[in-house]
């Protein structure tokens, strides 16, 4: 690698400025119709997921789940379970061979009992884990466990849990109170802002719990090959699992074989919790004890073991002038059971607007319900508060909410003029992302013709017509790092990308192939990404959602180094040994005199002077990959060979929260609904999603996240809710018959629009999109229903019963 190449790579670490070295000739990047790398195997049923893995002699593992919201095991008799034919091993909470606490892995290093004796929510794994010959036997054995439970007092309502005399919901972890975090932040003087305002609004909204419902249920397979562990995971953090296995069993990292097959989607956050590795840990112990592979799987009810981190109450006070300029926002939030309570509740107002006075008070409280984590994203509350503030101000003043958004767009309390100056300083183009998103979105939904004042338009069938609009910025910006490598294969000159990561299905692997193909100069069909195997490199994985901007740079860096090495090899003597060497393929030229395009190395000044990459790397030989001739005749000249061509590189990005990076790209979404005021039913007539992704790498991937996110968002906005029995704390709909997710019939047509301002911090000016729509679009529903019926519904999801209640009909 030349000093210049290295300097360029290092100069773009942390993604703090515009990409200074984009590629001019983009043949596959941004091209429509690039065939997805996993398409055929997934369509034909041949894709293998961890849930599909079956090994000879494999045992099946299941465990006891807490029947109560808060309880402790007084005593437990597992003798009947142990006597059941087919039961091979049982791990108990009091197993003398288990450590008292262990770091199961997660966002942070933890210490907790691997098989707990105390449960803090209904459904929590507790007490005993069983490995048996089949799932049926393991389940039957679990039912045969006799437990004397001590039921402990519990609280479900977050408002009760913060009272001064509230009982302790998790006394072992939080011995002095139920508040996990109390955070105060903001800027300016909100009281002065309210005094200067023409209107002041106050309201409280409540968000109920929704969850992930990943298609492939959490699972894993653990096998010991002598002292060497081997694991198949369904998990978004393969690198963490490898670290944990080494620590759990005191084995060198280098002895661990890790496989990360296709992943049936899990939407993030749960993978950051220690409990996500409970199964892997117990399977490892049981496999060691039994000498057999152990597979653990959750049943569908087990999988309802957590939810989104926005459940709770938020009270907002907003001051604005009559033209829609918002002068002050004060927010007090009460959110429950956040595993990582660091994401705030007014961050998008702080970071994404020119609102001068903001006060944020966030209180994170523990109750006896499932843990809450980022489900696809942690920004839900931040997006909700931004949009309720803008939409309610517009509603109160009779203004078009789109105009209110434009009036308050900005960054860190400054207006868009200030933001434009910063864009220039950072090397970005002068584009107004929000306006561009609005132009496309408004045209697609025909906003100017269809928007009306709230509650003023009924359809021919007497349903009420409503339009809704939401907006915010992109946020592919949390911490992440990526190590990736590319090897040029012999025989055909194809390239293999290495970088173990969980394939969540976003088509990211194809995008990375496009980047490598363009950067090296290969046909895209000659580039493959082997994401499922641990070859010593771990890419940023679909978690923390910094994938494209980190992996994109890592693969680009590796590709640029590899290209340089190919060209250097092309002008250098070949096959040099003690016997001598062979002249270069391109004698008397320098690397910079050559190019690579569509799989051919060529002389720029004479493109007809070329050699295919396949021919250049030569074919594998009988006794090794490099030298052609195994038994050269005496006196015959030995043939030349091509050195191995391989490159690795990396990218790091520190978290950009707390205004480390200004947000430049925007998104805007629109919906048209019909509300039946007799039944409360809300029909989605049309939905338009617009995202500024900076620069499209893979169209299928971007649009897939748009319509896919739209479906998840509508589920969240309309009906997804985990319901708890308020008397017992038992979850009542932890299955897919009763916890509804959207079907193909539930939502009207979705139109997607992409904006490319080039203002992303990733390679080629791109940013990711995976979390955006699912997180932002749910709040279209309250806005559109308000526009339809003229009443705000401040309890989400906006179910028919809540609509009727707002109309005084229920």
């Amino acid at each position, binding site marked *: 690698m030349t000093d210049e190449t290295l300097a360029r790579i290092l100069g773009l670490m942390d993604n703090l400025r515009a990409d200074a070295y984009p590629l001019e000739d983009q043949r596959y990047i941004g091209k429509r119709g690039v065939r997805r790398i996993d398409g055929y195997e997934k369509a034909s049923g041949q894709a293998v997921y961890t849930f599909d893995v079956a090994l000879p002699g494999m045992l099946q593992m299941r465990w006891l789940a807490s029947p109560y919201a808060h309880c402790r095991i007084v005593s437990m008799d597992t003798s009947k379970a142990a006597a059941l034919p087919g039961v091979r091993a049982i791990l108990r909470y009091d197993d003398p061979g288990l450590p008292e606490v262990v770091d199961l892995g997660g966002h942070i290093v933890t210490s907790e009992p691997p098989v707990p004796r105390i449960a803090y929510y209904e459904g929590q794994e507790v007490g005993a884990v069983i490995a048996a010959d089949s799932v049926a036997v393991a389940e039957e054995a679990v039912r045969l466990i006799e437990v004397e439970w001590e039921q402990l007092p519990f609280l479900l309502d977050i408002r009760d849990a913060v009272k001064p005399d509230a009982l302790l919901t998790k006394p072992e972890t939080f011995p002095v109170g139920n508040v996990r975090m109390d955070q105060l932040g903001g800027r300016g003087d909100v009281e002065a802002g309210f005094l200067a305002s023409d209107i002041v609004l106050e309201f409280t909204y409540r968000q109920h719990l929704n969850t992930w419902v990943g*298609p492939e249920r959490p699972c894993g397979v653990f096998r010991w090959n002598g002292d060497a562990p081997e694991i198949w995971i369904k998990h978004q953090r393969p690198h963490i699992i490898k670290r944990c296995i080494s620590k759990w069993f005191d084995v060198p990292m280098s002895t661990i074989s890790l496989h990360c097959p296709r992943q049936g989607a899990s939407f993030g956050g749960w993978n950051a919790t220690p409990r996500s590795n409970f199964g892997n840990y117990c399977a490892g112990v049981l496999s060691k004890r039994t000498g057999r592979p152990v597979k653990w799987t959750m049943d569908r009810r087990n999988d309802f073991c957590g939810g989104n981190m926005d459940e709770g109450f938020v009270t907002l006070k907003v001051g604005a002038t009559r033209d829609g300029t918002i002068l002050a926002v004060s927010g007090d939030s009460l959110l429950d059971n956040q595993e990582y309570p660091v994401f705030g509740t007014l961050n998008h107002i702080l970071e994404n607007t020119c609102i001068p006075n903001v006060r944020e008070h966030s209180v994170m409280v523990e109750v006896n319900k499932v843990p809450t984590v980022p489900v696809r994203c942690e920004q839900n509350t931040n997006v909700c508060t931004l949009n309720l503030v803008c939409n309610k101000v517009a509603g109160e003043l009779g203004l078009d909410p789109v105009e209110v958004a434009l009036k308050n767009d900005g960054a860190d309390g400054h207006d868009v003029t200030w933001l434009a100056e910063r864009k220039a300083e950072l090397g970005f183009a002068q584009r107004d992302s929000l306006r561009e998103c609005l132009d496309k979105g408004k045209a697609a939904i025909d906003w100017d013709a269809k928007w009306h004042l709230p509650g003023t338009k009924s359809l021919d069938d007497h349903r009420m017509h409503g339009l809704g609009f939401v907006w915010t910025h992109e946020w592919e910006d949390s911490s992440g790092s990526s190590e990736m490598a590319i090897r040029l294969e012999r025989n055909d000159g194809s390239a293999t990308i290495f970088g173990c990561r969980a394939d969540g299905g976003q088509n990211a692997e194809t995008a990375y192939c496009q980047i490598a193909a363009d950067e090296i100069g290969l046909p895209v069909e000659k580039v493959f990404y082997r994401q499922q195997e641990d070859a010593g490199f771990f890419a940023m994985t679909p978690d923390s959602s910094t994938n494209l901007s980190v992996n994109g740079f890592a693969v680009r860096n590796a590709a640029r180094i590899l290209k340089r090495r190919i060209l250097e090899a092309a002008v250098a003597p070949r096959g040099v040994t003690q016997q001598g060497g062979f002249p270069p393929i391109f004698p008397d030229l320098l690397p910079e005199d050559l190019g690579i395009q569509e799989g051919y190395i060529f002389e720029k000044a004479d493109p007809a002077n070329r050699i295919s990459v396949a021919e250049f790397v030569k074919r594998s030989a009988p006794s090794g990959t490099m030298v052609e001739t195994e038994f050269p005749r005496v006196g015959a000249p030995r043939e030349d060979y091509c050195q191995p061509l391989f490159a690795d590189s990396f990218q790091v990005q520190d978290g950009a929260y707390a205004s480390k990076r200004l947000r430049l790209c925007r998104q805007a979404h629109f919906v048209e609904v019909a509300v039946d005021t007799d039944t409360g039913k809300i029909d989605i007539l049309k939905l338009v999603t617009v995202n500024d992704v900076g620069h499209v790498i893979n169209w299928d991937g971007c649009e897939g996240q748009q319509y896919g996110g739209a479906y998840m968002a509508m589920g969240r906005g309309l009906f997804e809710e985990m319901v708890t029995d308020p008397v017992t704390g038992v979850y009542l709909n932890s299955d897919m018959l009763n916890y509804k997710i959207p079907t193909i019939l539930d*939502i009207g047509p979705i139109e997607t629009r992409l904006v490319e301002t080039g203002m992303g911090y990733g390679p080629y000016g791109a940013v990711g999109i995976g979390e955006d729509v699912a997180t932002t679009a749910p709040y279209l529903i309250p806005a559109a229903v308000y526009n339809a019926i003229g009443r705000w519904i401040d309890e989400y999801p906006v179910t028919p019963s809540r609509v009727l209640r707002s109309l005084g009909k229920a």
Partner: protein
Amino acid sequence: MAEKVKSHAPIRLAVNGQPHDLLVQPNWTLQHLLHDQLGLLGVKEFCDRGACGACSVILDGSVVLSCMVLAIQCDGRSVETVEGIAAAGHPLIESYVKYSCMQCGFCTPGFVVAAKALLDRNPDPTEREVMEGLAGNLCRCGTYPQHIKAVLEAAEILRGAAPGASGGAAEATGDTRAAREVTR
């Protein structure tokens, strides 16, 4: 393994056109038989409760949820899975790839099966009929809009109506498979 075996019953089941003489336990579902015993991994288990359509197969011409059918009930019957549909070169497979109808892909085989059954009984469906034909299948990644395009195009190919289609599934299949080899 030493699982307590109740009693095995013999059944004869045609799987993707191939006759199989099988011994099945009375508590085995058809999904278990196909996925776990015969290794047809496209018969996926998603909801575990007859709610999602991921384990869909075509049993004697009708789509069924194989997690809700006992294997022992299938004696003398004929079942078609996504593997059989792909092996026969049905144009749905290529149209599903072309329109990127999958994200995580776990539910995709079930959609293909439901779509194939739809086209078997209705070669020229409307967009609404496609949606209704796929309404029993859940996709958490939200790929639904693409399925409609893919199924309608596959229907056109089957009818010989699509540009380049030369009539009949088998012939169309040959073309699309060749294209696959070239482009990926």
